C-alpha cells in the first residue's frame, strides 16, 4: 500500500502486512514512521487530504476499496474497530458511558434511534444488559455504575477499558489499537495489556497493536512489524525479532532500550545517531542509510527489497544475509566505558541535597456551610513526611504512579512550590522554601530540567543566546569572549556541534532541544540537578543518547542527580539509588541494586511486576493491582496501600501505620511484614538485577 496526501508526499510506501484471525501484530515505530497513518488506513479511515495512491486493504479476503459510504459505515459498525490513544478525548464528554457503549453495539440500530434527553441511559433492556455485559467483560466490576457515569468521572484506566468495551461492542474481526496504554501508569497499563491478551484468546479477534514501545509489544503480540520512515523494514515473530533482529534499525532500537539490571557504565546504551528523514526528503536508496552504522555504497544508490529471510520473516536490507550468518555486526560500536570503576561511593560527608520530612497539603475550599458547622478543613495530601538524600556523583531515581507526589517533591526542592512542612538543604545548608527568597548565588547550584524544557526554550533567541543568559545572570560571566567560549564548551558537553549556537529552537529536533535545555541547566555548574520526566516523550533512540549523556556528564562533573520518571526501566538503568513513592510518601528506598530484588515493599513488587520487559517468554509470576489508588484527600488510616495491597495482613495494616524496616543492604521499607518473611515469599522479578551493578550494597541484599 502506498498512501499519501494529494500534495504528493507519501506517508507510507509499499507497506504490506497481514494479520491472521486470533493473532496480534505489533506495529512499532518512532514518531514520523507513519504507524498511526497505517493504523487508520487499515480501518479505511483517511484524513481529509489523504488518499490511497496505490494498494488496498482486504478483510477476510475481500478488498475494501471503493466502498460506498453506507458500506463503509457498516464496515466500521460490525467488522473493524479502533481503540484510540487518548480515551478521555475520545469519549464524548456529555454523554454517559452506557449510552456511548450502547450506540456502538453492532446490532443496535443506534443510527435510527431518535434523540433522547441528555445522559439518558441506553434504550431497551436488551441494550442495557449488553452494555453491562461488555463493561463487565473488560473487568469493570461495577458495570451499572460505570454505565451511568460520564467519562470525566472515571479514572484513566477505567476510561481505556470503556473504550475497549465500546470497540468490542461491534464484535469486530479486526481491532486496531493505537497506543492504548501510552498515558496510563505502568500498573494500569499491565492490567490493560493482560486484558488485550485475554480478549484475543477468547474472541479470536485479530489485533493490530500500534506502539512506540518494543517492550509493550513484546508482552501482547505474536508478531512485530517495524516501521521506519513510512516503510516496513522488518516483520518477524516476537521471540525471533528480539533474539535475532536482522535489520540494523531493529537492532538499534533494541540497543536503545535500557534493560533492568544493565550497568550503564560497563554496557552503555547505543543510541541511533541522526534523525528520521522527513517524508518529502527520503533518500533514493535505503531509507535508513543515513543513520545505518553498516551502510555501504549500494545502500545509498539502490532501494532494498522486502526479502523473505525465513518462513514468516521479512526484512528490507541489502546486508541481511551477512547479519543472519553472523559475519556482520550491525551495531554501532559502543563508546568505551567512561570509567573503569562502578558507581561512585558517597562523596563528602554531607549529602549534596537532603530533603527532610517534606509535606505539602493543598487545602480544599470549604463551603460556608461546612465552616459554620465547624467541619475540619480537608486537604489534598500531595506529599507526606518525605525524606531523601542525594549524594554527589550519584543519581537518585524517584518512581511511583501518577499522584504519588514525585513531581510535587521536585517542585518543592527547586522552590517552585512552597512545602507545608519540612525542609530542603543543599550541601548541609538549609534553603529558603521560596525561590525568590533564595540567594541568587545559590540558585545556580540547583537546576531543574522538565519534560518540556526543550520546547519551552524562547523561540526567538538563538541557542547561543539562551545559553548565555544564565551564564551572565547566575554564573557571573562578563566578557563576550568568555561567554562565547563557555557556550561552546556547553554545547560540546551535550554532544551538539558548536554551529548550533546560531540556530533557533525551531530548527532543532525534540531531542536536540532537550539537549539544549540540559546544557542550559549545566551552565551554572550546578551541584544538584533535578530531572522531572526529562526524557519522557522522546523517541527511544533519542532518549538513549540523552541517558548516555547524563551518565557521562555525571562522571565528569560529579553532580548529584535526582531523576524522576514513570519509566521504571529508565530509572533502573540510570539510578544508583531508588526511592519508591506512593500517595505522597516514600515507602521504600535504598541502593538501586537492593531495591530491584527481594525483599520488596509490596507496592514496589507490584510496580516492578508491571514493567513490560523485552523478554517475551519467562515472565515471572506477576502481581497485579486491582482498583484505583485511594483519593489523596481521604487517605485510609493505617498503611495507605492496604486498600490495594495483595499481601495485606488485614486488621493490623488497616489500623496502624507501618514501621520502617532496614536490612543489611542499606534499604529501608515501610511495611508491617518483616523483611525476612517478604524475601521468602517473593520471587526476584529481574533475573539479572543487581548482578551487574555492584553498588555499595553489592554484598547480600538478603538479610
Amino acid at each position: 500500500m502506498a498512501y499519501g496526501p494529494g500534495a504528493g508526499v507519501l506517508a507510507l510506501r509499499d507497506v504490506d502486512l497481514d494479520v491472521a484471525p486470533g493473532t496480534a501484530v505489533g506495529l512499532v515505530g518512532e514518531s514520523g514512521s507513519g504507524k498511526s497513518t497505517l493504523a487508520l488506513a487499515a480501518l479505511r479511515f483517511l484524513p481529509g487530504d489523504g488518499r490511497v495512491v496505490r494498494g488496498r486493504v482486504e478483510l477476510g479476503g475481500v478488498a475494501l476499496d471503493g466502498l460506498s459510504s453506507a458500506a463503509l459505515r457498516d464496515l466500521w459498525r460490525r467488522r473493524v474497530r479502533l481503540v484510540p490513544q487518548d480515551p478521555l478525548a475520545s469519549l464524548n464528554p456529555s454523554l454517559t458511558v452506557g449510552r456511548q457503549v450502547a450506540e456502538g453495539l453492532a446490532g443496535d440500530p443506534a443510527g435510527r434511534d431518535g434523540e433522547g434527553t441528555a445522559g439518558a441511559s441506553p434504550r431497551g433492556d436488551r441494550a442495557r444488559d449488553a452494555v453491562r455485559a461488555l463493561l463487565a467483560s473488560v473487568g469493570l466490576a461495577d458495570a451499572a455504575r460505570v454505565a451511568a457515569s460520564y467519562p470525566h468521572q472515571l479514572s484513566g484506566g477505567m476510561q481505556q477499558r470503556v473504550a475497549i468495551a465500546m470497540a468490542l461492542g461491534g464484535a469486530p474481526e479486526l481491532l486496531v489499537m493505537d497506543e492504548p496504554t501510552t498515558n496510563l501508569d505502568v500498573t494500569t497499563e499491565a492490567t490493560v495489556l493482560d486484558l488485550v491478551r485475554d480478549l484475543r484468546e477468547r474472541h479470536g479477534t485479530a489485533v493490530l497493536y500500534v506502539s512506540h514501545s518494543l517492550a509493550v509489544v513484546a508482552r501482547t503480540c505474536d508478531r512485530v512489524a517495524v516501521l521506519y520512515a513510512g516503510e516496513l523494514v522488518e516483520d518477524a515473530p516476537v521471540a525471533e525479532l528480539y533474539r535475532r533482529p536482522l535489520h540494523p534499525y531493529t537492532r538499534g532500537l533494541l540497543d536503545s532500550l535500557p534493560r533492568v539490571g544493565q550497568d550503564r557504565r560497563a554496557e552503555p546504551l547505543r543510541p541511533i545517531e541522526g534523525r528520521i528523514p522527513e517524508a518529502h526528503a527520503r533518500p533514493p536508496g535505503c531509507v535508513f542509510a543515513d543513520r545505518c552504522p553498516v551502510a555501504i555504497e549500494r545502500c545509498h544508490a539502490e532501494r532494498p527489497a522486502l526479502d523473505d529471510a525465513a518462513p514468516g520473516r521479512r526484512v528490507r536490507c541489502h546486508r541481511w544475509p551477512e547479519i543472519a550468518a553472523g559475519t556482520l555486526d550491525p551495531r554501532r560500536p559502543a563508546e568505551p566505558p567512561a570509567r573503569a570503576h562502578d558507581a561512585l561511593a558517597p562523596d563528602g560527608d554531607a549529602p549534596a541535597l537532603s530533603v527532610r520530612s517534606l509535606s505539602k497539603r493543598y487545602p480544599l475550599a470549604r463551603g460556608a456551610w461546612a465552616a459554620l458547622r465547624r467541619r475540619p478543613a480537608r486537604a489534598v495530601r500531595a506529599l507526606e513526611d518525605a525524606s531523601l538524600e542525594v549524594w554527589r556523583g550519584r543519581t537518585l531515581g524517584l518512581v511511583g504512579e501518577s499522584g504519588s507526589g514525585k513531581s510535587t517533591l521536585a517542585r518543592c526542592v527547586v522552590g517552585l512550590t512552597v512545602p507545608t512542612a519540612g525542609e530542603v538543604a543543599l550541601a548541609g545548608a538549609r534553603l529558603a522554601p521560596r525561590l525568590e527568597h533564595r540567594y541568587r548565588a545559590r540558585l545556580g547550584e540547583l537546576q531543574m530540567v522538565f519534560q518540556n524544557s526543550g520546547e519551552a526554550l524562547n523561540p526567538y533567541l538563538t541557542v547561543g543566546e539562551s545559553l548565555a543568559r544564565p551564564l551572565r545572570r547566575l554564573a557571573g560571566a562578563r566578557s563576550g569572549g568568555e561567554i562565547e567560549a563557555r557556550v561552546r564548551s556547553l554545547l560540546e558537553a551535550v554532544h551538539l556541534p558548536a554551529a548550533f549556537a546560531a540556530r533557533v529552537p525551531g530548527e532543532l529536533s525534540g531531542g536536540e532541544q532537550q539537549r539544549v535545555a540540559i546544557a542550559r541547566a549545566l551552565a551554572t555548574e550546578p551541584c544538584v540537578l533535578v530531572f522531572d520526566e526529562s526524557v519522557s516523550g522522546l523517541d527511544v533512540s533519542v532518549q538513549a543518547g540523552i541517558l548516555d549523556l547524563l551518565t557521562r556528564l555525571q562522571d565528569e562533573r560529579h553532580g548529584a542527580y535526582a531523576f524522576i520518571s514513570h519509566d521504571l526501566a529508565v530509572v533502573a538503568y540510570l539510578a544508583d539509588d531508588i526511592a519508591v513513592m506512593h500517595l505522597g510518601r516514600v515507602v521504600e528506598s535504598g541502593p538501586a541494586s537492593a531495591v530491584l530484588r527481594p525483599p520488596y515493599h509490596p507496592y514496589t513488587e507490584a510496580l516492578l511486576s508491571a514493567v513490560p520487559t523485552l523478554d517475551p517468554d519467562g515472565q515471572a509470576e506477576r502481581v497485579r493491582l486491582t482498583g484505583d489508588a485511594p483519593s489523596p484527600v481521604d487517605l485510609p488510616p493505617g498503611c495507605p496501600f492496604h486498600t490495594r495491597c495483595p499481601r495485606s495482613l488485614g486488621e493490623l495494616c488497616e489500623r496502624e501505620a507501618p514501621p520502617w524496616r532496614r536490612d543489611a543492604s542499606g534499604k529501608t521499607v515501610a511495611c508491617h511484614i518483616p523483611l525476612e518473611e517478604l524475601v521468602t515469599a517473593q520471587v526476584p522479578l529481574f533475573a539479572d538485577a543487581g548482578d551487574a551493578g555492584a553498588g555499595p550494597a553489592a554484598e547480600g541484599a538478603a538479610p
Partner: protein
Amino acid sequence: MTRFLARRLGYLLVTLLVTSLLIFLITQLLPGDVARVILGREASEPALQALRERLGLTRPAPVQYLTWLVAFLRGDWGTSFATEQAIRPLVLERLGNSLMLAGLTLAIAVPLAIALGVAAALRAGRWPDAVISVASLAVVGLPEFVTGLVLIEVFAFRLRWLPANASIAPEAGFLEALPMLILPALTATLVLLAYIARLTRASVLEELGRAYVRTAVLKGLPPRVVLVRHVLRNALLPTVTVVAISVGWLISGLIVVENVFNYPGLGRLLTFAIDRRDVPLLQAISLVAVLAFALANLVADVLYAVLNPRIRLG
C-alpha cells in the same frame, strides 16, 4: 448544584446593588444641579429651591441613595416629572412590550443563526461558508436604523406586506400585534445574527476536530447522528452563553429599533425620559434594563451548568 445556584444568586444581587449605585451617581450627582437641569437655565432661584426640597436633593447623598433604593424595592418607583404619572405601571407596561419584541427576535434569530453557523462550519472553506460569513459581516456592519429603514422601504412601501409603524395599542393582544412586530423583530435579528452565527461556526468547527467525533464516526454512526448527538450537544454549550451576552446587545439595539418603528417599548420610553430630563423615570428604566440583562446571564450560567455534566457533576 445548590451551592452553585446560591453563589450565582449572590453575584446577581451584588451586581444589581453596584449598578443601582452607579445609576444613582450618574443620574443624580454628576450633572451638577438636577433642579436646574430639569427646570432649565431661566428658572428662578426660589423655584429651583422648591424643586430641590421636593426631590430631597438637600439631604446628604448617601441618605438620598438609600431612600431611593428602599423606596424602589418597596415598589414605589416615584412619579415621572414629565407626565406626572406613576412610573411603575408605565415602565412595566413598556417592559412587557419590549419583552414581546425581544422574545420574537430571539425566537427568529437564535435558530436561524445556529443553522447558518452549523451550515457554514460543515462547509468550512467552501463557498457556502464564504457567502454566510461575508453576508453576516456586511449586515452587522450596518446600523439598525439603516437596516430598519431599508426593510420599511421594501416590505411596507414597495411590497405593502407589513405596516411601517409599530405603534401598537396598549390593549392589543399578541396576535393582533404580530404583523406590526415582524419588521422591528427582523431588524433586531439582523443585529444578532452575525454574532451568534460566527460563534456557532467556530465552536462547531472546534468540536468537529475532536477525537470523540472520530470515535463516533468509526462506530459506523450515520453523519446526521454524529452531528446531532455528538457534535452539536457539545458545540452548542458555548452558544448558550453567547445568546445571553447578545441579550445585552439586544437591549441597546432595541432602543434604536423601537424609535425607528415608533414602537411603545422600554427603549422609546428611555429616549423620551432623556429628552425630557425625567430623572426618576430614567433611573427606573436603567435599573429594569440591568436586571433583565443580569437575569439573562444567570439563566445562561445555570443552563450551561445543567447541560454540561463536567460542571453539573464536578
